[in-house]
């Protein structure tokens, strides 16, 4: 109900001001059809992305559900919730460390494998077969992690898992934390590399074949062609993809860490990331102060990272910068 009223109110304000200011905003008024067309998506972004950003003030509030977020009292002193973070060293540091660690593993290894796979498929001359293979490689990305966890279980279960029965071992994967960075990385690669390579392949397909022919005439071998023609052509796409991913440095594939590990406490030391912690907290009646402070930290660090990275790219290769 509140939601409906909000939608009507915002819509009324937007279009009323457009109408009242039509003499001042001549261009906008002339293009009012475009305003109308852009409006629904605008409204959804406002409701689903922009207004929720205000939820970050939770970090400074003593949240009381019945009062709502804005009427809840501020904490005294204002940074109190953050002192909890630092006081809980263990938890907070572990999940922050894990978040960063997995980001770097997944991004570096993932990008590398995406490119290798894209080039490999591109170089493979049995085109029909390459296409069939690619079809299969992309499939995993369409399997939700809620389902993937059962596949992983079928491989890793200590008494029924394929790995243990095949090797005749009895490794207790689900209680051995140090193994999980490898397991999660494998699952992530399985899930996303086939799909990730599609974007790079599209760039490869767009490279002027004349370049390769010229190189061949000049006597350049396959590796030389890849190094001097293919890779440089991929750089803009790589930069853009990396830049985009930097903003998500504090965010993770929640399903991977929450579902595949079965949110198992024994594994937290190597598997808990900020996002899976927050999801766990929401489901188990959160300590709003602590969780809010964590979320705030997560969002701000993400923002700073992308601003920094974009600034850096703008200095080095301005044409590849995002903004």
């Amino acid at each position: 109900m509140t939601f409906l009223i909000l939608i009507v109110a915002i819509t009324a304000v937007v279009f009323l001001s457009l109408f009242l200011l039509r003499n001042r905003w001549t261009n906008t008024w002339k293009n009012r059809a475009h305003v109308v067309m852009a409006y629904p998506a605008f409204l959804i972004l406002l409701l689903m992305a922009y207004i929720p950003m205000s939820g970050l003030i939770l970090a400074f509030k003593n949240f009381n559900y019945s009062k709502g977020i804005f009427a809840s009292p501020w904490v005294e002193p204002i940074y109190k919730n953050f002192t909890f973070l630092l006081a809980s060293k263990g938890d907070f540091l572990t999940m922050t460390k894990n978040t960063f660690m997995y980001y770097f593993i997944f991004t570096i290894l993932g990008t590398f494998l995406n490119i290798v796979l894209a080039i490999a498929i591109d170089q493979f001359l049995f085109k029909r077969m390459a296409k069939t293979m690619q079809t299969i490689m992309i499939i995993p990305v369409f399997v939700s992690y809620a389902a993937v966890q059962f596949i992983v279980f079928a491989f890793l279960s200590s008494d029924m898992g394929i790995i243990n029965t095949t090797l005749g071992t009895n490794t207790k994967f689900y209680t051995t934390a140090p193994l999980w960075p490898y397991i999660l990385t494998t699952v992530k690669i399985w899930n996303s590399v086939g799909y990730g390579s599609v974007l790079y392949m599209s760039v490869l397909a767009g490279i002027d074949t004349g370049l390769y022919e010229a190189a061949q005439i000049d006597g350049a071998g396959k590796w030389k062609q890849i190094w001097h023609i293919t890779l440089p052509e991929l750089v803009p796409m790589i930069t853009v993809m990396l830049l985009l991913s930097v903003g998500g440095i504090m965010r993770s594939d929640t399903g991977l860490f929450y579902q595949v590990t079965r949110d198992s406490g024994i594994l937290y030391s190597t598997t808990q990331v900020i996002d899976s912690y927050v999801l766990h907290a929401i489901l188990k009646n959160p300590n709003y102060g602590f969780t809010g402070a964590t979320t705030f930290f997560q969002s701000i660090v993400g923002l700073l990272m992308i601003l920094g990275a974009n600034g850096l790219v703008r200095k080095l290769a301005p044409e590849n910068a995002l903004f």
Partner: protein
Amino acid sequence: MAKVDLDMAPSRREKKGPAQYVLGFFLLLYTLFCGLPIVLVFISAFTDELCIVQNGYSFFPQKWSTDGMHSVLKYGKQLMTSYGITILITVVGTLFGLFVMSMFAYAISRPGFRLSRFLSVYLLIPMLFSGGQLSAYVIFTSLYGLKDNLLLLILPLAVSTMNVIILRTYIVNSVPMELMEAAKIDGAGDYRTFFQITLPLMKPALAAVGFMMATAYWNEWQNALIYIASDNKKPLQLLLVNIQKNIEFLLNSNNVPAAARAAMGGAIPQQSATMATVVVVIGPIMVVYPFFQKYFIKGLTVGSVKG
């Protein structure tokens, strides 16, 4: 529109030397790595329960059985309800999302529309900065008063920056400007130009984005887990999540003796039944995907390459 067959694009006339076979071997290995786990799901769904419990999961089970599938049907009503919910949010969400996003993409790609600069920045910011899950949770439930509401499964995924960018790039690069201008000269208004000229020409991009959206909706479990409480609103994925919870509960509760557990038999979703549920949940995507792959790769490609 420039016709580039991207799948088969550069037909280089080269000899298929031994290096090609080595490359093919490695590609085949990776293909197996990707495909076999999925095959295992289907095999396990039709493996005898006792066989799994005693010998473990296997690609070559000693005994086949349809018991797993049968016990899935025991969820009966809940399964049908969940299927209905998932199909509903997938269809409604995808169509609605495509509609509002392509209108937005069209509007911001119009030359001479000064607001489009502001709107482009407005579109980009959510990709760079977000309030995170907890903020969304508190705002949705406490400020909007939305709880146990299917809107919470549809709206958050309806508009995504990346998809709008793909659609906009497609309009700019592949829908001829002259055509839209000609329509205008012939007296077609903005709406008419969009619906009768631009939208039909956007089909490849719409198919690509639409397929990605549909799988995102189909696979959505997180918002469902957080917001959906009543059984008649639970999507399929939540059913999967809950099955796991049920198994854990049963195995953890030591007060259920082993014999009693065995006697319950098919009533508890055990290994093969769980896999059968996975089949039921991921099956439709596996069936539909090959038909969409063409559009999916082409649209993604055409939309994402600059210039």
